[in-house]
C-alpha cells in the first residue's frame, strides 16, 4: 500500500491530522483494544467451567485428592469415563432420554403444527379467544401444576394400566409436554407471514388445508420448525423435577435424573462426577456445534416479537 499510494493524499491526510488532533483513544485504538480485552475476558469466564469440567474429568483419584488441576496422564484419565458410564448406569439413562426426547418432539410437532396452522390461517368462531386462553396458560408456573398433574397422571395410570400404564412409562414423560404453547405461538407467527396468494393458487389447484400445510407451509417454515425442535430438545433433555416425580425405577428415568442421582451419591469421587457431566453434556454440545448458526439465530428471533 505505502509504496504504491500517491504522495499527495497522504500529505493531505497529514495536514488534516495536524489541524484536528486525533484523540489518544482514537489514534491508538484504545477503545477497540479495550473492547477485545473485555470480550475475551468474558469469554474466558464463560469457558472456565467447561475447561475445569474436562480437565477434572481426566484426573486420577489421587490427583483429585491432592488438589491438582491438570492431569498428568490424560489418556489414562479416560478410564474415568468408562467407570462413570458403568457405575451410573448411563447406558440405560441415555437410551431413555433419546426415546423420551424423540417421542416428545414428534408428538409436539403433530399437535402444535396443526394448532398453529389453524390459528394462523383458518377462520372459525372463537379463534382469537381460544388463542388468548392458550397464551394465558403460559403465565401459570410449572411449580403450581406439579402436584395436580402428578395426581392426574396417577389417575390416568390407574385407568389405563392394563393397556398403557402412565407411571414409570413414556406417556407421563412425554404426553403432557406435547402441547407447547410457546411452539404454537412461534409457528403461528411464522405461518401468518406466508403470502395469501400461495393459498389462493393452491386452492385453485384443488388443494385443501392439509395438502397446503404439508406441501407449501411446512417446507417454507423450516427455520421455525428447527427452532421449536431445538427448544423442545433442550427442555426434554434438561427435565429433572417432573421425571423425578413420575418415575420411581431407573427403567424410564432420563439422563438428567441419572446424573442428579450420581452427583448426590458421588461425594468424594469428584473426577467421576465430572466425567458424568461431560458424558451428559457432550451430545447437546456436539449438536450445538454443528447447527450453531441456525441454533442461535432461531433462538434470537424468538425475542423479536415478544
Amino acid at each position: 500500500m505505502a509504496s504504491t499510494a500517491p504522495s499527495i493524499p497522504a500529505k493531505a491526510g497529514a495536514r488534516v491530522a495536524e489541524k484536528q488532533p486525533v484523540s489518544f483513544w482514537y489514534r491508538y485504538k484504545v477503545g477497540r483494544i479495550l473492547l477485545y480485552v473485555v470480550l475475551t475476558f468474558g469469554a474466558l469466564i464463560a469457558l472456565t467451567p467447561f475447561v475445569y469440567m474436562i480437565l477434572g474429568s481426566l484426573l486420577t483419584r489421587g490427583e483429585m485428592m491432592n488438589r491438582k488441576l491438570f492431569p498428568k496422564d490424560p489418556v489414562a484419565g479416560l478410564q474415568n469415563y468408562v467407570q462413570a458410564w458403568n457405575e451410573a448406569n448411563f447406558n440405560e439413562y441415555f437410551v431413555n432420554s433419546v426415546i423420551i426426547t424423540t417421542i416428545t418432539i414428534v408428538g409436539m410437532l403433530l399437535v402444535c403444527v396443526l394448532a398453529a396452522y389453524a390459528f394462523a390461517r383458518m377462520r372459525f368462531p372463537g379463534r382469537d379467544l381460544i388463542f388468548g386462553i392458550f397464551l394465558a396458560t403460559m403465565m401459570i408456573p410449572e411449580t403450581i401444576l406439579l402436584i395436580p398433574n402428578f395426581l392426574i397422571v396417577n389417575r390416568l395410570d390407574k385407568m389405563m394400566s392394563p393397556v398403557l400404564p402412565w407411571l414409570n412409562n413414556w406417556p407421563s414423560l412425554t404426553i403432557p409436554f406435547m402441547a407447547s404453547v410457546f411452539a404454537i405461538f412461534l409457528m403461528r407467527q411464522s405461518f401468518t407471514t406466508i403470502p395469501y396468494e400461495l393459498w389462493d393458487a393452491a386452492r385453485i389447484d384443488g388443494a385443501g388445508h392439509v395438502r397446503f400445510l404439508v406441501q407449501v407451509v411446512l417446507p417454507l417454515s423450516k427455520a421455525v420448525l428447527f427452532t421449536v425442535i431445538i427448544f423442545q430438545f433442550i427442555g426434554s433433555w434438561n427435565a429433572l423435577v417432573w421425571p423425578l416425580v413420575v418415575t420411581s425405577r431407573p427403567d424410564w428415568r432420563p439422563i438428567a435424573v441419572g446424573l442428579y442421582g450420581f452427583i448426590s451419591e458421588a461425594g468424594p469421587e469428584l473426577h467421576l462426577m465430572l466425567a458424568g457431566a461431560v458424558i451428559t453434556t457432550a451430545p447437546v454440545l456436539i449438536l450445538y456445534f454443528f447447527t450453531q448458526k441456525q441454533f442461535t439465530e432461531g433462538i434470537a428471533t424468538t425475542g423479536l416479537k415478544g
Partner: protein
Amino acid sequence: MAQQSSAYAPSGRMTGARKRAVQEAITGYLFIAPASILLTVFGLFPLLYAFYISLHRWRIKKGPFLGLKNYTKALGDPQDILWFVVGVVLIFLAWFIWRNMVQEQRAWAMALKFLAVIVLLVGAWAAIMGLGKMIKSGDRQMFESFVITIFYAVGVVPVQLAGALLLAVMLYQNIKGKDWYRMIYFMPYVTITVASAGVFRAIFSRRPESIANRIFGLIGVPPQKWLQEPHGIWELIFGHFGIHLKQVLLGAGLDSFLVFVLLGPSLALISIMLYNLWVFIGYDAVIFLAGLGAIPSDLYEAAEIDGANRWQLFRHVTLPLLSPTIYFLTVITVMGVFKAINHVLVMREPAAQGTVDTASLYIFDQFYLSTRFGYASAIAMVLFAVILTLTFVQNRFAQRRVFYG
C-alpha cells in the same frame, strides 16, 4: 383479505362460500382439538384442581376437607391477612388516583393528590403491619423462602439484563471473530442444567483450592465456604471488619425475621445467582443482538446529523427501540426466577441450612419430601397470586415505558 369478507358473507347469496366457511370452521376445531385437550387436561384443569387440593388435608391420599386452614397455616391469622390485603388494595388505589390526577392543575385535583398520598401512607402502614403479624403467626420458613426468591430476583434480574445488554452492544460493533464470541457466550445455555450445576458445585466448594477460591483469591478475597455458607453477605462483609452485624441488629431490638432480611442473601445463594448469570447472560445477549439488528440504521444517521454523541444515540435511539426486547426479557427472567428449581436442587448443600430454598423449592420439598400435597398446593396458590400481582404491576409499568415501533 378478500376471503375474510367472503367467509362471513351474508347468507343466501353464496351458499357455496358459506358451506366452505362451515367446513373450514369444523376443520379448524379439529386442528386445534389435540392441543386444546392436552392443555385443558395438563394446563388449565390442574389450576382448579390445585385449588381443590389446597382445601383438603391431602397426604398422598385425599383427607378431610379443611377449608382455608392450609392457607391460614401458611399465611397466619386471617385478620392479619385482611390487614395486609386491604393495605395492598389501598396502595393500588393511591396509585390509581395519582395517575389520573397527575396532569390536572386545578385545586380539587391538588386535594385529590393530597388524598392519594394519605391513602398511600395508610395503605403502606396497613400492609406492613399486617405482613409483620402474618410472619409471626404463619409459616416462617415459607416467608423466608419468599424473601430468598426476592433476593434472587433483585440480585439477578438487573445484573443479568444490564450485563447482557452491554455484551450485546459490544458484540454488535464491527469486530473480528464475532461468531466465535457469540458461540462461546451461548454455550452455557445449551449445557445440561444438572451437569453444569454439578460442575459449579465443585467450583464453588469450600476447599481452599477450589476454583472459586482461587479466582476470588486473585482480587484478595479470603477463602470462603461458598455453597456451604449459610451466613448473609452483609454479615460476612461486616464480620471481615470485626463487626458482628447479627448481634448488633438483634441487640438493637429488631425482630429476628427483619434481621434475616437485613443480613442479606447468604453466600450460598449468591453462588447460585452467579451460576444463573453465567447461564443466562449469553442467552439474553443473543436476543438483544437480534433486537439491535432490527433497529433501522437511518435512525442513527438522522440522530448523528442532529449532532447526537454516542451516549445520546444509545439513550435516545437504542434504548427506546429496544424496550420491547427489554420488557420481554424482564418478564422471562422474572418468571425464570420464580420457577428456579433444577439448578438449586443440584447445588443445594445441607450446610447452607435452607438459605437457598426458593419458593418453588420449598413447595417441591413440602410435596415431594414431606408428602403434604394439600399444604404444598396452598403455598403454590399463594405463589401464583404473587406472580399474578407482579405481572399486573409489570404490565402497568411497561405500558408507559415500552415503545412499540
